[in-house]
């Protein structure tokens, strides 16, 4: 079909509202962030000068303070991403299948239960889990003590601190993944399963040969959004472990925000944020290529 000038114009009108919002709330701040990252910008300082790529070079120069906090934080964040993303996908899908298998009358109820924590603010989440995890006075350890297990250092020792942070993250955010998976599962045509049953397929075969291939695009979406969300981990370690024990759970975003608002050096903080964003973008592209490539072969 040939596009005329008028039709192009009308389609432009349709995307205009989104474009405006996108430019004001996302594009402009990003570009401004780039601008700031090229200056030695300090909050409260009257003048600032163009320093070119110096802030970026600092990040990649071993021995500088920025280099140290950036890569130490990045390594901690990367560990969290590695641990959490697979679980966010697997548990999300498992919950979705579980809820879907429930009788229709109580399905909505459980869907709400599992989704509820997602609506809580970070501080409420933290208050609840600090009480759950407390080594010497918490709920979990009181329960475990009845089974003869005592003194698990949930937030003060590794690997427990990691386990606690991931448990909290699952509890807090899994509802979103679950809802998306439920929608995807409902999209799979019922006849596929019926046909497979007639052919004598068991539950495992139905899951691997029908369910998984059918929800592959949604799986990719969940994988990418979960990765991005996990990279942006901040509230859980900031409020629960305070980066401890030592600084083993001090994630990159804690360091970026300290740099911006404690040290007031917004220029280098913006550079850190932008390098971090680039890393996330590259990883998302790689995930996309890998996953869609596999689909092409099938």
């Amino acid at each position, binding site marked *: 079909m040939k596009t005329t000038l008028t039709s192009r114009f009308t389609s432009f009108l349709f995307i205009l509202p989104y474009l405006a919002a996108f430019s004001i709330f996302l594009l402009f*701040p990003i570009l401004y962030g780039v601008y*700031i990252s090229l200056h030695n910008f300090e909050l409260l300082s009257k003048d600032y000068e163009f320093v070119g790529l110096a802030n970026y070079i600092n990040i990649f120069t071993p021995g500088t303070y920025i280099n140290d906090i950036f890569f130490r934080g990045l390594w901690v964040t990367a560990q969290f991403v590695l641990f959490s993303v697979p679980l966010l996908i697997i548990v999300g899908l498992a919950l979705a299948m579980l809820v879907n298998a429930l009788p229709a009358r109580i399905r909505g109820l459980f869907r709400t239960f599992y989704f509820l924590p997602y609506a809580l603010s970070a501080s409420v989440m933290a208050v609840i889990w600090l009480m759950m995890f407390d080594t010497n006075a918490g709920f979990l350890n009181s329960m475990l003590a009845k089974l003869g297990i005592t003194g698990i250092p949930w937030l003060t020792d590794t690997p427990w601190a990691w386990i606690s942070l991931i448990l909290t993250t699952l509890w807090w955010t899994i509802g979103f993944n679950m809802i998306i998976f439920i929608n995807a599962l409902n999209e799979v045509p019922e006849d596929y399963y019926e046909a497979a049953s007639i052919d004598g397929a068991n539950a495992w075969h139905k899951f691997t040969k029908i369910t998984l291939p059918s929800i592959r695009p949604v799986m990719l979406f969940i994988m990418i959004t979960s990765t991005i969300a996990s990279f942006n981990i901040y509230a859980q370690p900031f409020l629960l472990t305070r980066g401890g024990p030592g600084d083993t759970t001090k994630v990159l975003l804690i360091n970026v925000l*300290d740099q911006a608002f404690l040290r007031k050096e917004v220029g280098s903080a913006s550079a850190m944020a932008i390098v971090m964003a680039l890393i996330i973008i590259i990883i998302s592209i790689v995930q996309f290529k890998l996953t869609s490539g596999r689909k092409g072969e099938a």
Partner: protein
Amino acid sequence: MSKARNKFSMLLLTVTGAALIAAGCSGGTSDGEKTPDEGKSSGSGKKTEILFWSPFSGSDGPFMKKIVDKYNGSQDQYKLNFVIQPNGEYYKQLDVALSTGKESPDLMIMHVDQVPTYASKDQLQPIDDLAAGAGINKADFAEAATDYSTLDGKWYSIPLDIHPLVMYYNKDLFEKAGIAAAPTNRTEFDDAVQKLTDKGNGVYGYAVPTLWPQQFIFPTLVWQNGGELWNGTDVAYNSPEAVEMVQWLRGMVDSGVSPANVQQDGENTLFLQGKNAIQFNGPWMKSQFEEAGLNFGVAPVPQIGKAKQAVFAGSHGFVVPKSVTDEKMTAGIGDFLKYVSTNSMDWAESGQALASKPMLESDAFKALEFQSSVASAFPYVQFAPNVLNWGTVSEPIWGELNNALLGKKDAQKALDDAVAKSQQALKK
């Protein structure tokens, strides 16, 4: 759409957005834009309006509001508009407001240890003239706070209160252990916590915090032991004096006086449950303990160190941004601060010990047992080292101290590591 997206854009928005606002103005802010001050104080018959910022978003807010309301009712020349910003966000909000000059406060509360940083960034004006004009006498305030906020001979902050670390103890547990008086030195303290510890009932003498409020406890102990955090040119918290105090703290975990693996607020949870006999914390905890119905006492922190009595403290003070130049405005601010210096009993009611000497010596204040006990430490209170960006310079201490107190690192090694990181932060 998704939480992921939201968080992602939040990151960019917070860092870039806040900086954006800051940038938009720091370039263009000229004296010409500062005229709104005059607009607010339109002359004939109308009241001069003064925008007053505070971080009192906790239970202390209503007490300050009461003072402002009473002042506004007491005269008809000036009107204070009292604004409470969220405590955790206060300095972020302030930085943005000061940078943009829009809705920027005319008078604000500032913690005394922030004064050197903001003064060096040329954000505050010396208040010597303002105080003299209003009849406020510098000698009427606790010296620790006025000395600290006097930089190069200029006075920047009129102190409201001083809040040192104090010792809270559970009176019921003390009675049960047969201890008559609160300990005042290391021997008495070590002895008391041994007696108070009752393993069978899960009661500990002193649960050692591994995170906050170590920001108050660690400096207190180091100073008491004759050490320094800052030796005038460099960070100094890996001295033998500091190491000895960290070993003393960790020793209580090893001997069972404290439980191991105390998490954030863990010692306070135990204290509220009546399972931790003593804790060191700030005066602001008082109302929480009262609400919990605890039978508790308060006393100055004992002298644990070998050298001298000392205690780390914070302090709220009033400061005036440099941009406030209107004469009516400064006269109004002076008038209000003069009023506060003699009418701040409402603030003492919030649990704070006041920095104004006439108030401290008043019968009304002396009748307040808790606040008087807090104020008894004023002669030897010390604030954070008067060093630009001390908050970031000292930041590595807390992670390494956490390591040492959790038993993951030797005390000397942990403090050496903290010093190395701080030195790197100083170099940038």
